[in-house]
Structure formats: C-alpha cells, structure tokens
C-alpha cells in the first residue's frame, strides 16, 4: 500500500460484529425448574468503519449494546462472530507476544466512572506511568517521571498533583488523570465509553473540549460512546445509532442531525430539548426499549414504530445506504 492509500483506508473496520451472552440460570436450577438455556444478543451484526483522525460516535439507549461494542473493540470481550480490523491487522485470537504488545500500545480506553477506572491505592504518578512501564520496550527511552509531569500539564493538572491519590481529586480532575493515562503510551486510537456522563454538567464541556484539543494535536481517532445527543453532536464526525444491539442508522454527524432517516433517529432527535423550542410541547420518546432476552421478531423497533407494516413484523431490515428500515427502503417515508 502506498502512503496515500494508507491515509485513506479506515483505521478501524468492524465487520458483522456479534456478541452473545449466556444468561441462563445455573445448571442445577435449570434442571429443577425445567428452564432452557437463555442467551442475549447484546451486539448483533454491527459493521462500521472509523476514518483516521475522526470521531465515530455510537449512540443508543441503555441496553442497546454500546458498551459491549467498546469492550469488544479493545479486546476485553471476544466476539461471538465478526471481525475487527485495526489498521489492516485482524484482531483475533492469533495475536501473541511482542506483536500484540505493539498493537495494544496503539489503542486505549477512557471509562465512564474515573473513580472506578483509577486504582484507589495508587498515586496518580504511578497510574499515569503504568502504560510507560508496560510498553517501555516500544517507547523511546526517557525519564518516565518527566513524561508524567508533561502529561499532567497536558491535561491541565500540575506536576504536584502526581503524589496525590485519585480520591483527593474532583470528578473532572479524575477524568483528566484517566485521559493522561490513556495518552501516556502515545496511542492513535482511543475508545471513550461515556467519558462525561458521570460528571457534572459544568465540567462535561471542559473535558469534551480537552478531548477535542488533544485529538487535533495528536491526530487521535476516537470511538465515542454516549447516550447524550448534544455531546455527540459536539464531538462526532460520524454517528451510528444503535437499537437493541443492531445499527439502525449510520451517517455523517451533520446529515444525521439535519435529515434523520430512520424512524428511531427521528424519535430521538424530536425528544432533544432545544432552546429555540422553549414553550412548544416536545414529542416524547414513545414506549421503551424491549428486553434483549426476548426481542420482537422482524425489525426490533416495530412495536414503537409509527410506520410499521406486516413486513416489519417478519423480516429483519438490513443496513442499506446507512439505514436499516423497510419503510425507508420502500420509500414510504
């Protein structure tokens, strides 16, 4: 591949990703009550690509499989089916040793609750220095402490904060520490799993702006997971809307907000409070997300969909030109 082609090829390519969880009762309970095995398809046949230096956002209600996708991408979970291709390399079971370490250095994750994602018994310096230690062989040799000081400054903390423990910080500062740790090994890809939803609203914007600045500065690629549409609008270049483990719609951020096509996306956007709409009644999101253990047949959204017809009850819609909807496909909406 030439440099130009590498430049154009996506950094992350997710193909037909599925993950099934076994949620059956223990064996003995099952035998006694005569119940069968139970599975949840938390993620079902999800495909998307993430371009270099861009932000791909995944939005959806709770239970839509957002976090599961994040964990599948970074390798905390193994996919039941499907492939994840990172910069032309298949992330599968086959990666071992130095090769795996080299690849791991390139991706990182920022978690929802920084209080849980930072070891409470470690000083902040040690937390930020951990990736430096783990990837010492793949990094230019430098004083790790100097780099820690640099990283602390980069995220807007002072070097003196290095001796403190995570519980001595506020939520926003803790998330800054988590970001510093994620950046320590100079990754080019970061999965952000609702990085601001545990924070005060006043702090959210600061963290989001910090993340945007860092993206511009280091050419980072983000997969950004959120249930907050305003946050996503601020951050994302491209958005995937998840419903019950399947992608309902994928589109450029601007297009998705201006001309939502899938009925579910429309419903979500109609529900977003808007300062220009003050006084006018807002349309509520009708119904609730069904149980993933017993999903409705056909299109999972059909019980809540105003455009539902007989075909929607039977047939699962495929993602065609960024929308998975029979009604759109048939030109009914």
């Amino acid at each position, binding site marked *: 591949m030439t440099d130009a082609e590498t430049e154009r090829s996506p950094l992350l390519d997710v193909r037909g990703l599925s993950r099934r969880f076994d949620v059956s009762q223990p064996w003995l309970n099952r035998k006694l009550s005569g119940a069968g095995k139970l599975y949840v398809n938390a993620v079902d046949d999800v495909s998307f690509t993430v371009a270099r230096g861009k932000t791909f956002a995944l939005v959806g209600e709770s239970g839509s499989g957002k976090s599961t996708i994040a964990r599948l991408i970074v390798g905390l979970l193994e996919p039941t089916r499907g492939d994840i291709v990172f910069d032309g390399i298949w992330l599968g079971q086959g990666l071992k040793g130095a090769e795996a370490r080299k690849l*791991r250095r390139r991706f990182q994750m920022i978690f*929802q609750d920084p209080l849980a*994602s930072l070891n409470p018994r470690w000083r902040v310096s040690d937390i930020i220095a951990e990736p430096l230690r783990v990837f010492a062989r793949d990094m*230019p040799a430098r*004083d790790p402490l*100097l780099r820690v000081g640099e990283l602390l400054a*980069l995220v807007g903390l002072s070097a*003196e904060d290095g*001796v403190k423990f995570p519980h001595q910080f506020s939520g926003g500062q803790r998330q800054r520490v988590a970001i510093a740790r994620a950046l320590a090994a100079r990754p080019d890809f970061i999965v952000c799993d609702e990085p601001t939803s545990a924070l005060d609203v006043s702090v959210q914007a600061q963290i989001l702006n910090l993340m945007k600045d860092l993206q511009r*500065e280091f050419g980072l690629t983000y997969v950004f997971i959120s249930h907050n549409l305003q946050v996503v609008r601020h951050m994302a270049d491209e958005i995937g809307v998840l419903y019950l483990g399947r992608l309902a719609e994928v589109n450029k951020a601007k297009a998705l907000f201006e001309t939502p096509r899938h009925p579910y996306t429309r419903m979500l956007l109609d529900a977003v409070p808007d300062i220009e709409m003050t006084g006018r009644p807002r349309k509520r999101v009708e119904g609730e997300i069904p149980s993933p253990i017993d999903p409705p047949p056909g299109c999972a959204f059909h019980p809540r969909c105003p455009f539902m017809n007989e075909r929607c009850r039977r047939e699962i819609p495929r993602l065609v030109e960024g929308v998975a909807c029979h009604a759109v496909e048939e030109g009914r909406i």
Partner: protein
Amino acid sequence: MTNDPMTTRQIEPVIPPRPPGLLRQALDSDMFYSWRNSPVTIVATFTAAALILVALLAPWIAPYNPFNPATLNLMDGFTPPMSEGAFSDNWFLMGADHQGRDVFSTIMYGSRVSLFVGAMATLFAMTLGVGLGLASGYNGGTIDAVIMRIADIQLSFPAILIALLIFGVARGLIPPSQQESMAIWVLIFAIGLSNWAQFARTVRGATMVERQKDYVAAARIMGVHPALILLRHILPNVLGPVLVIGTIGLALAIIEEATLSFLGVGVPPTQPSLGTLIRIGQQYLFSGEWWILFFPAVTLVLLALSVNLLGDWLRDALNPKLR
C-alpha cells in the same frame, strides 16, 4: 518516533515531586489518628509490644536459663513467688516449678515459642489463603468451585480437630529420630493449614468485587499479565480485611497452639510453650502451688487479649462506615 506530537505545543516538563517518607505518611494517616484517639488500643499496643519484646529478648534479659541443668537446683522446686530458694541463693519473682525452674524465666522463653508458632502459622495460613482466594476470585469457574468446596468442608469442622488430624498424620510420616526437631514445624503446618479457609473466603469475595472494576479493565487492555494485575492492582485493594483477620487469627493461633500443647500433642517438653507450662501447672493446682499455673495463664490471656483488641481496632479503623 518520527513526528513527535509533543513538539506542537510547548510544555515545560516538570518532574512530579516524590511521595513523602513512609514515617510522615504513617503519622499523617487516618489510621494513626484513630489509634491516638482510642486509649484501649494504645494500652493493647504497648502490652502486646512489651510481651513481644520480652519474648524476643528472653535469652538476654531472663534472670535464669531454665533449660540449663547446671543452674537448676531440684531442691528449689515449688518455691513460692517473691522468695528465695530453700537450698540456693536463687530468688524467684514468680516462684519455681516442680523442677526448680524460675517460672518468670520459663514464661519468657515460653512466650517466645508461643509467639513464633502463632506468627509463623498465621503467616502460612495467610499466604496460602490469600493466594488461593485471589486465584479463586479472579478466575471463577471450576478452579473457584473446587477451592471453595474444600474450604467449605474444612470450615464445617472445628479448627482444633483439623489441626489434631494434620498433626497426627504428619507425625506418622516423619521418622521418629527427627520428630523432636521437626515437632515445631509440624505444629506450624497443622495450625496454619487449619486456618487458611477464612482468608481464602474473604479474599475471594473482595477479589470478585475488584476484578469487575474498570481499573482492572484498563490494565487488561494494556495487556498486563494476569499475575501482575492480581499482585499490583487487586492485592493492595483486598489487603484491608486480610490484615484484620490476620491479627485476630494471630491471637487464635496462639490459643490453638496453647490448646494443642495443653493436650500434650504440641511442642516437645524440651521447648515448653505457654500451653505446655499451663499443662504442667494444672497438675499442681490442687496441691496449693498455684503460681506454676497462674502466671503462664495470665501471660497467655494478656497476649491473646491485647492482640485481639488490636485486631478489633484495625477492623473498625479500616471500615469507613464506622467512622
């Protein structure tokens, strides 16, 4: 790195300061504050420290060496406390036993044996229990089921019975010529093995909670080896309850050793522990020589009580809900 992104923005690198010294940290800690405000704990600390110090220094500070036959005078036997032997110049603070040994000195040497056995047994139980508990809680599945069923079975028997059983079996396996020298290690093994289950259960539960947390996920994403995750990340976070059980376990182990020695299956008579001394003493209690029993028993109570009180304090101090 060809294009160092750090060059795009000028940041004056500052090295973070070093953490304060260990003593400073200890004096500034909440633990020390809670210790200073609990008079019972302060008394218990000094009692335990004094007993441990006396035991450690016994060969140098004991007035007599009760195991040196040259200094013993059998005719001094049963000398009451605070008096001089009838046939020697020896003065006995706590009296003399049936062989004319100074009870005060035998207690010093005896608590040495008791503390050594108790501490080593607790350490052994702790290492084994924490190791198995971590493995059990982190891996789950079959390993967890096997380890925990063994612990369940063992917990359904009294610890002393298990120790007796292990002691008996181990004794049978060791050639008679080495029994005397090995006895103390067999005892440590028996007491330790009968107490690991408490540690394992506590650590397993705490580990199962900790491994779900995102800081473990963050380490796993980096590809940190599971053994290192357990050692560096999870172990420091589950150590609090271990310290509490360890301290209370030390008191229990000392009592367990005393019980075994009292029953005559513990340390050999040439190395009497507090339990052995109590066993010897109770033979003379009804003939009026109370001091042979009384002083070792009081020492045992003081030792077990002070260590236990320390354990209680530790439990309260480490539990933020009780503050």
